[in-house]
């Protein structure tokens, strides 16, 4: 029991470290390094604000990327022609309430966490608040991302400055 508790404690600590490092990458616009965390069949999704918790494929999402589109998104964000993203906003991500559960596959973990993101650009502060749901593959010394979704608590994107010009 104590071993299990210690293992669980260690697992949560590793997941937290991973989430913090991921947030740090995004906060310094290290998008290529960030993309390298994803598996080849990974997904990144953001449901519409009026249907939090929606299943992919049954409703209109704001973002529903497979790896190819996510890779296109990163290419876009690094381009000076991504006018909404360039100049990049200054962002600060706060991640908390990290919960780690077993996933269907024993090599994976299901992670939930709360987030607040402040984004500052052209004299305005935008705020995104919500919950992350990750499925991570545990390679022992590192994690890779199988799926990553962000369910926003915003009722409309107005509070978030209107548009998604950052990785939520």
């Amino acid at each position: 029991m104590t071993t299990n508790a210690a293992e669980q404690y260690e697992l949560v600590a590793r997941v937290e470290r991973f989430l913090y490092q991921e947030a740090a990458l995004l906060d310094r616009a290290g998008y290529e390094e960030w993309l390298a965390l994803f598996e080849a069949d990974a997904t990144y999704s953001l449901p519409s604000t009026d249907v939090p918790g929606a299943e992919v494929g049954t409703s209109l999402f704001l973002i529903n990327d497979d790896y190819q589109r996510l890779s296109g998104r990163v290419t876009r964000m690094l381009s000076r022609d991504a006018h909404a993203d360039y100049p990049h906003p200054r962002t600060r991500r706060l991640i908390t309430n990290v919960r780690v559960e077993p996933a269907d596959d024993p090599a994976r973990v299901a992670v939930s966490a709360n987030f607040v993101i402040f984004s500052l650009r052209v004299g305005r502060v935008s705020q995104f608040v919500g919950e992350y749901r990750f499925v991570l593959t545990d390679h022992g010394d590192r994690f890779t991302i199988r799926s990553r979704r962000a369910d926003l608590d915003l009722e409309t994107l107005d509070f978030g400055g209107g548009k998604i010009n950052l990785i939520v």
Partner: protein
Amino acid sequence: MTIVAPMQQAQDEQGDGVAVGGNGQLNRLIHEDPDAALFRVHRDAFVSQEVFEAERREVFDRCWLYVGHESEIPNPADFLTRKVGGRPLILCRDSDGGVRVHINTCTHRGAEVCREARGNSKTFKCFYHAWTYNTSGALVGIPGREAFGAGFDAEERRLQAPAGVDVYRGFVFATFNPEAESLPEYLGAAGEYIDLVADQSEAGMQVQPGTHQYSIRANWKLLVENSLDGYHLVPLHRTYFSYVRATEGEPLGKRRGTQAKDLGNGHAVILDHAPWGRPVARWAPTFGEWAREPIETRLRRLQELHGEERAQLIADTDRNLLVFPNLVINDIMGTVVRTIWPTAPDHHEVSGWALAPADMDDRLRKLTLDNFISFLGPGGFATPDDMEALESCQRGFAASREVPWSDVSRGMEKPLGEAVSSDEVQMRAFWRRWNELLGRSGSSVAEPVIR
């Protein structure tokens, strides 16, 4: 129906100078000089509080406004609540299956009788004093009814409705103007383009769950212009086209035969054959080989139902349609139904819905939704850049005294019917109608100096 033939270009691109109709001053915001092929909009139109208030009176209180789509309330007693023209409305199906629009305010003291976004309910019970209405709007429950006197008529106290409510091909509209023309008259030639969207499937069209609910810190008319702007596509959306090119693995095809039309009454459309796939029904390699057969089957069915020529218009032609003043139906890589509601001179709210054939299987529906959000919506590869451009224009308007005019002249010298989507005849159609309506206003705005 003659979609391809030139529509009667309203007023034949002939304005009559600065002052068009009316005796007010607001109509001095458009400067049109047909001889010089110049059309300019004064930037006060985008920044003035007075214009903003006049628009509410002369545009939004007078025109037919889109409320929602029948498919959003498929069953008796289904309802949704929505703000339309600044008013809180309930769109619902009554117990007989009829579409109803009620004004969402208790006739007793004013509280909203429905405070949920959507649902199914046989009654709307005010939470304040428990007056209760049925789905037809009749007042069916009044606690302590006997305490009201002889002059109290419960029939009069039913939920009120907008002055006009009508449905065109599943699209529900309302007007707050008791003198408004009928909806079919109001839509005029724009109705034919709604038909092309509604005819995508014999099973009908469905608004998909999930709403893109966003906002732009810019004047609402900038989004109207942008929604019909073929000129900006290549320069502004370079990253989207790079992405399409990379995923399609082939260079973009030459865009064939674009057109821009003034449909009269302020409505307008641009037509295109753009280098992206349309799940209804133009297959593209990026959809995957599996999707080729089901999409081509849909195309064949459209050909059987409507003939080759019309099927081509439905399936293969991209169209961006404006139904004046603020409904956009862009039938492009996805079909977006978009409403644009001004909240302040420099801020507006946008709702975007995805419309898709009701008879698509789950896989094709998913493809349709995914293709939609590749470009469209506030998390897509293109819409955020549009939003950025509009906000940047609005920031530029801070110098409207020094730089007072925006130019909307492109393609003005072209003969009737030869306008292409990168011309601006479609925007001039909007602006002329807008100007005509504001010209009826008695209010006065200082006449801009033409430089």
